[in-house]
């Protein structure tokens, strides 16, 4: 299992990680890659990178994220669109269905027909599997999902009188995340709920690609004490252009009924 260990290149610190376009940032992603999509609801989702991946066309992908998306209107670029575009073999998510039983996700049709596989993971387990991958922990025990259908046939252990379920680290080839601010080394700051999965996705991935809201600043432009995610976890940065060229969060609208 590849967990992101590689040679230390000290020259990287001096070289800007900024690339000119979303297309360029994701051009090398091969078929069969495992890609994490950060974000929770609207904040922190790398809409522009997801859209670029739709155009790039890599296939047989495994996508990891909170949800396949598509319950809200207007619909923003999401995992479900890549599924509809025939690019996805499997998703690993905390939701393969909407929270409201009356909402039908675009993804559901592809899942039910067997065109796309899914692994349903409790949200905290998903976050911890990503963190573990980035932290060199191959597996861990959690009380979550013990006694449920998800634990059937799987390894558990009683520790200090309580039963725990064994969960494995979830390493990523790529992570797509969005941040508010970055310096050219990739030190990141998030605004409010933008943070969510993004720091652990960045840790878990060999190649983390970040789309950035504000103009990317030179190294030293962010106080070290105020960095939310260290640039050592980041490989590429793209500045989000203003609308309409760039995609930005929109005001929440009525959900589909």
């Amino acid at each position, binding site marked *: 299992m590849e967990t992101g260990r590689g040679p230390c290149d000290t020259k990287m610190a001096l070289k800007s990680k900024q690339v000119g376009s979303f297309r360029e940032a994701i051009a090398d992603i091969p078929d069969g890659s495992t890609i994490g999509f950060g974000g*929770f*609801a*609207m*904040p*922190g989702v790398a809409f522009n990178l997801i859209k670029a991946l739709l155009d790039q066309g890599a296939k047989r992908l495994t996508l990891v994220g*909170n949800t396949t998306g598509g319950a*809200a209107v207007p619909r923003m670029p999401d995992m479900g669109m890549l599924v509809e575009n025939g690019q996805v073999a499997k998703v690993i998510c*905390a*939701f*393969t*269905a*909407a*929270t*409201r*039983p009356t909402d039908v996700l675009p993804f*559901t049709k592809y*899942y*039910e027909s067997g065109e796309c596989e*899914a692994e*349903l*993971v*409790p*949200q*905290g*387990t998903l*976050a*911890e599997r*990503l*963190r573990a991958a980035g932290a060199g922990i191959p597996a861990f025990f*959690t*009380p*979550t*999902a*013990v*006694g*449920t*259908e*998800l634990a059937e046939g799987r390894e558990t252990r009683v520790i200090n009188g309580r039963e725990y379920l064994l969960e494995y680290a979830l390493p990523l080839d790529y992570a797509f995340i969005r941040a*508010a601010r970055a310096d050219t080394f990739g030190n990141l700051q*998030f*605004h*409010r*709920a*933008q*943070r*969510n*999965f*993004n*720091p*652990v996705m960045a840790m878990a991935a060999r190649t983390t690609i970040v789309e950035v809201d504000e103009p990317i600043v030179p190294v030293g432009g962010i106080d070290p004490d105020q960095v*939310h995610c260290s640039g050592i976890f980041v490989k590429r940065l793209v500045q989000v252009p203003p609308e309409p060229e760039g995609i930005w*969060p*929109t*005001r*929440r609208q009525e959900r589909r009924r």
Partner: protein
Amino acid sequence: MSDTKGLNRQQMADRMALEFQDGWIVNLGVGIPTMCSNTDLGDVDFTYHSENGIIGYGPVAASGEEDLNLVNAGGQNVTMKPGGSVVHHADSFAIIRGGHIDATVMGAYQVSMTGDFANWKLKGQKGGGIGGAMDLAACARRVFIILEHVTRKNEPRLVTACDLPVTARGVVTLVSTNYGLFEPTGIGFLLREIAPGLTVDEIRATTGGVLTVADNLRSVRLAGSN
């Protein structure tokens, strides 16, 4: 709403919110539970945690004043209260698994008399929507459930045993429905408070297991909601 008897949705939430104590960290699930944040609890000083790492959020933002990067678990644009903070998802669930959440309030399809509950998968459904429910159910210090007392077909939601896939077993300690306030007892449900317009017989006929009635049964208490 499938059943208009008894309390409305806000009142079901208002009753549950009365349980919140000074100093508690409380997590509200999507749906009716989020309506607990509309309840005016006066001086009770507690903090809301949202699974996406937002600690100390306040009411939904006024129209035109939304921060599009600040949402609660349901994706609503909320506000921050003074003293609020933000952590990433792994830390947010460390808060949950680490036993730092005093109470979680969730919706459900069914609750059993042994305190199991089901809220992530419908009958015959492939996959489902777990979100943070299993982590919260397994690890919050108290698990409170709000649900409508019966299904559209007038079948009980308080049942002897869940026939839907469970979210966690033996964790629910209190249930607020439109018919009243209930505690799973292991052999049935204890009715502690009854909603206006309902009779004990009516509730017994629509509740799984043995319905026992508290000696000091009273009408459902309600906090004012704003």
